[in-house]
């Protein structure tokens, strides 16, 4: 036991671990905050769709020889805004959306193969790091950038929290009260795009939905009061990242993305059980 404690104490002396905590705090905070509204607005499918886009965008940038993050942020923000603009007027059914994003994933596979064959000496693990994240491999610059972007997203959401909450809970009444519902919806999906790109760096495109949904869903289970739920969702997401990082440090065979999502999932199951035990 004391050995584990000693390992935990040495955790922050490692520079890669410090970078991971810096980036992870910003990513977790914006994920939990945005996630609360994504769950409230019933837009989880958007998050799932954006994870496909994140994969393809990142690999397209790599294949074209740009920085991975350029394609990541560019693709997710563009698609997020696009989905917001099309919105309900597009009336695309499940099959159409699913087909488009399945094909997008296929394009991602093409870009992966282009990248891997174009750079025979370069790492063939790019696909794995996009799909499952590489939070322990961040440079200090990338970590601080991720943390600052996360803080920026949080600030924007908090500034717009009241109208956003109003528009999410009762769109018609909010519109009647003069809240720019449509503009808020579009900007919100743009921010979800930024969050998706951020989270891809931490836990990867495949698992980003977990970090977006699980802490927020747990918060929705624990309290119905918006302010408390928002704080709780943010706190639980940051806690998941911290606990996941610490866990993967103590047990190096467990990858950090798995640990982070596992903690988030356990928190959600715990919250559900607590709610069930209260009988409501």
């Amino acid at each position, binding site marked *: 036991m004391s050995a584990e404690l000693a390992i935990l104490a040495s955790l922050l002396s490692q520079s890669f671990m410090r970078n991971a905590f810096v980036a992870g705090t910003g990513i977790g905070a914006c994920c939990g905050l945005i996630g609360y509204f994504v769950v409230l607005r019933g837009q989880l499918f958007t998050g799932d769709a954006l994870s496909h886009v994140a994969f393809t965008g990142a690999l397209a940038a790599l294949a074209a020889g740009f920085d991975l993050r350029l394609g990541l942020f560019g693709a997710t923000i563009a698609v997020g805004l696009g989905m917001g603009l099309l919105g309900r007027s597009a009336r695309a059914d499940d*099959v159409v959306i*699913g*087909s488009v994003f*399945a*094909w997008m994933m296929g394009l991602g*596979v*093409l870009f*992966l193969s282009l990248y891997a064959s174009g750079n025979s000496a370069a790492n063939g693990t790019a696909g794995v790091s996009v799909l499952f994240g590489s939070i322990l491999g961040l440079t200090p610059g990338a970590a601080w950038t991720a943390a600052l972007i996360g803080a920026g997203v949080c600030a924007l959401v908090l500034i717009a929290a009241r109208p956003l909450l109003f528009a999410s809970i009762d769109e018609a009444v909010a519109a009647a009260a003069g809240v720019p519902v449509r503009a808020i919806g579009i900007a919100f999906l743009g921010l979800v795009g930024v969050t998706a790109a951020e989270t891809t760096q931490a836990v990867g495109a495949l698992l980003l939905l977990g970090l977006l949904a699980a802490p927020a869903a747990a918060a929705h289970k624990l309290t119905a009061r918006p302010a408390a739920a928002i704080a709780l969702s943010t706190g639980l997401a940051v806690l998941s990242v911290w606990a996941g990082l610490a866990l993967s440090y103590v047990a190096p065979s467990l990858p950090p993305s798995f640990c982070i999502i596992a903690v988030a999932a356990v928190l959600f199951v715990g919250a559900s059980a607590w709610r069930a035990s209260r009988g409501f």
Partner: protein
Amino acid sequence: MLSIGFLFLLGIAVAEASQITGSLLVFALLVLPPATAQVVTGRPGLGMALSVAIALTVTWLGLSIAYYTPYPTGFYITSLGFAGYVAARVARATEGRTRRQITASARP
């Protein structure tokens, strides 16, 4: 009982399909051919046969193209499936439009 049995079979189908396209692209091979078939015909028997035929064509074509080019099979299979679906939707839409035009011009 029937739905449990169906989901059991679906599980087997997904495991089978992921050997060809990989688990990420299963959706394309599992959903696109039947979606295309349902756009083309409303009759269940014909739809099933058509769906199987489309899936086989897409897989065979994808495999053969991938053999002659350096790019991955999964990409070709998803792209062919998606192209088939889009083609069916477009054909359906233009057909509907011509039919409407015919009825409109037939009217005195």
